[in-house]
């Protein structure tokens, strides 16, 4: 009896000591700054949003119809862990034709739940506790947190508007230590829209080779390049073996809600990622995979149509912003412009908040993409021309009032 009481007391004591059930890593993780802004904008009526990180096109009907057909035919079970072989074969052919890179559908491609999951399994496959991964900022908001969640340390390298937000070899080299394992690269870039050309990539490749680093190349916006031919990092001499190429259907094919991406890498890395994928995810959604097969077989003309439409809107928007005195370089890809708002004397957050409250235009303050994004705002021009025209009017009246 006495002994029993002791155990219970001890148990209570132990429990009381526990301040939280959550892991320290997660507790210390900051919520994305975008979330806060979303809450602010979501409650308002009549907002024109330039804050959306996804296409304004609805997925092509033929692609949607293919998914419906797959459901009608009863394809509702799991696929192979790596995804339908049929889809991997299409991806392999597509990557070869479009970007001149060659990956075996059998053992070098995994179909993932969005490019985000590809990024997650890639990091978890290569990072040991304490390993460093270089994140070039301003960057997509998930990179650094995913590195941390994989047990690594995210090391930031800042880029500047003066260099079109391109990273130099020297800046990269300064961030490299004995623990550096990899660099995350994103071109065309979210949030800056900057696209790296062949020469830029060769420079980065030299650094990777010199220090024996891997590069996680996020090429999700590859289809959306407007002035120059997109060059894949894996197509640079000697880089295939040290590149984990991440892409997907969300942006180019306007399929964000389908959650379908893929990752291509040399067999050894792919098989390591597949271990994580098979335990954590099993496989990507089957109907989305059938849709993707159709997208690759018959949807490429639609991608070209969308690309042209984005290019026109980019040109219109960049011209208009520059006319208003919000300086921005012409971004080579994606669907973002990242103008400087330093001339207004406001911080990014002040600018974005006031623009939203006073003129009902939602943009994303640049600092949520990293410190070096301060002084900028991210505007997505994946909106109708009418909305873009109206937003320019509103930004104009906002600026005149400042």
């Amino acid at each position, binding site marked *: 009896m006495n002994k029993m009481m002791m155990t219970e007391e001890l148990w209570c004591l132990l429990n009381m000591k526990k301040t939280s059930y959550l892991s320290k890593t997660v507790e210390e993780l900051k919520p*994305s700054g*975008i979330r806060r*802004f*979303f809450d602010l*904008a*979501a409650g308002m009526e009549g*907002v024109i*949003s330039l*804050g*959306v*990180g*996804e296409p*304004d096109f609805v997925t092509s009907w033929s692609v949607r119809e293919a998914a419906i057909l797959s459901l009608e035919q009863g394809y509702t079970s799991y696929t192979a862990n790596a995804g339908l072989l049929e889809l991997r074969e299409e991806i392999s052919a597509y990557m070869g034709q479009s970007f001149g890179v060659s990956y075996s559908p059998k053992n070098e491609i995994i179909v993932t739940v969005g490019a985000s999951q590809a990024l997650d399994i890639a990091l978890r496959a290569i990072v040991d506790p304490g390993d460093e991964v270089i994140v070039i900022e301003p960057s*997509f*908001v*998930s990179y650094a947190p995913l590195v941390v969640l994989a047990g690594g340390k995210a090391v930031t390298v800042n880029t500047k508007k003066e260099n079109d937000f391109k990273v130099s070899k020297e800046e990269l080299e300064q961030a490299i230590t004995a623990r550096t394992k990899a660099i995350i690269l994103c071109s065309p870039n*979210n949030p800056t829209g900057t696209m790296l050309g062949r020469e830029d990539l060769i420079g980065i490749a030299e650094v990777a080779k010199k220090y024996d680093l891997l590069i996680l190349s996020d090429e999700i916006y590859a289809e959306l390049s407007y002035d120059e031919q997109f060059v894949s990092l894996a197509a640079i001499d000697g880089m295939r073996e040290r590149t984990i190429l991440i892409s997907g259907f969300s942006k180019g094919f306007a399929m964000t809600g389908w959650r379908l991406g893929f990752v291509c890498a040399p067999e050894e890395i792919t098989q390591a990622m597949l271990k994580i994928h098979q335990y954590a995810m099993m496989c990507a959604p089957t109907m989305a995979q059938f849709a993707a097969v159709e997208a690759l077989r018959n949807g490429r003309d639609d991608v070209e149509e969308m690309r*042209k439409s984005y290019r*026109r*809107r980019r*040109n*219109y928007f960049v*011209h*208009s912003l520059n006319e208003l005195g919000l300086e921005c370089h012409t971004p080579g890809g994606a669907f973002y412009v990242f103008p400087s708002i330093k001339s207004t004397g406001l911080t990014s957050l002040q600018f974005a908040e006031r623009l939203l409250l006073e003129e009902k235009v*939602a943009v*994303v303050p640049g600092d949520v993409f990293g410190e070096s994004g301060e002084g900028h705002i991210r505007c997505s021009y994946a909106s109708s*021309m009418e909305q873009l*025209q109206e937003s320019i009017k509103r930004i104009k009246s906002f600026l005149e009032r400042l």
Partner: protein
Amino acid sequence: MKLTEKELEIVEILEKDARTSTEDMAKMLNLSLEETEVLIKKLEESNVIVQYSAIVDWSKIAGHEGVTAMIDVKVTPKRGVGFDEIAERIYRFKEVKALYLMSGAYDLSVVVEGKSMNEVAHFVSDKLSTLDSVLSTTTHFILKKYKHDGTIFEQNDDDRRIVVSP
């Protein structure tokens, strides 16, 4: 006539929205206003851009709903001019909204619009079928227009995206 990339883009933009202003188009194409005007003029003069018009859903306008019929017409082509002469005789009628030469079971497809079925029936019996070269006509009345010239009439194009996303 071979178009440059910019000219092709102008045609595509105007085909989607003929009311796009020249100023906006100049910005979209990275051209000056004057350059854009010159290109548009050239496209108009060479009849690549034939006309600017609006797609109207007349069924929405009380008292002006009207009827449209597609008429399959078999004709005897004439030596030397083929189908062109009879086609011209037909398309000159203002009731005729479209006329196509077809492959297959009949020769000409005539789209006719009128205020009522009666009016269209009169046109077919009085004007069309009495023409010398016309051998037969089959009239199909259109019951409902879902999509016309690439435009869906009842399109729900609400933006379903969340307001801010990474």
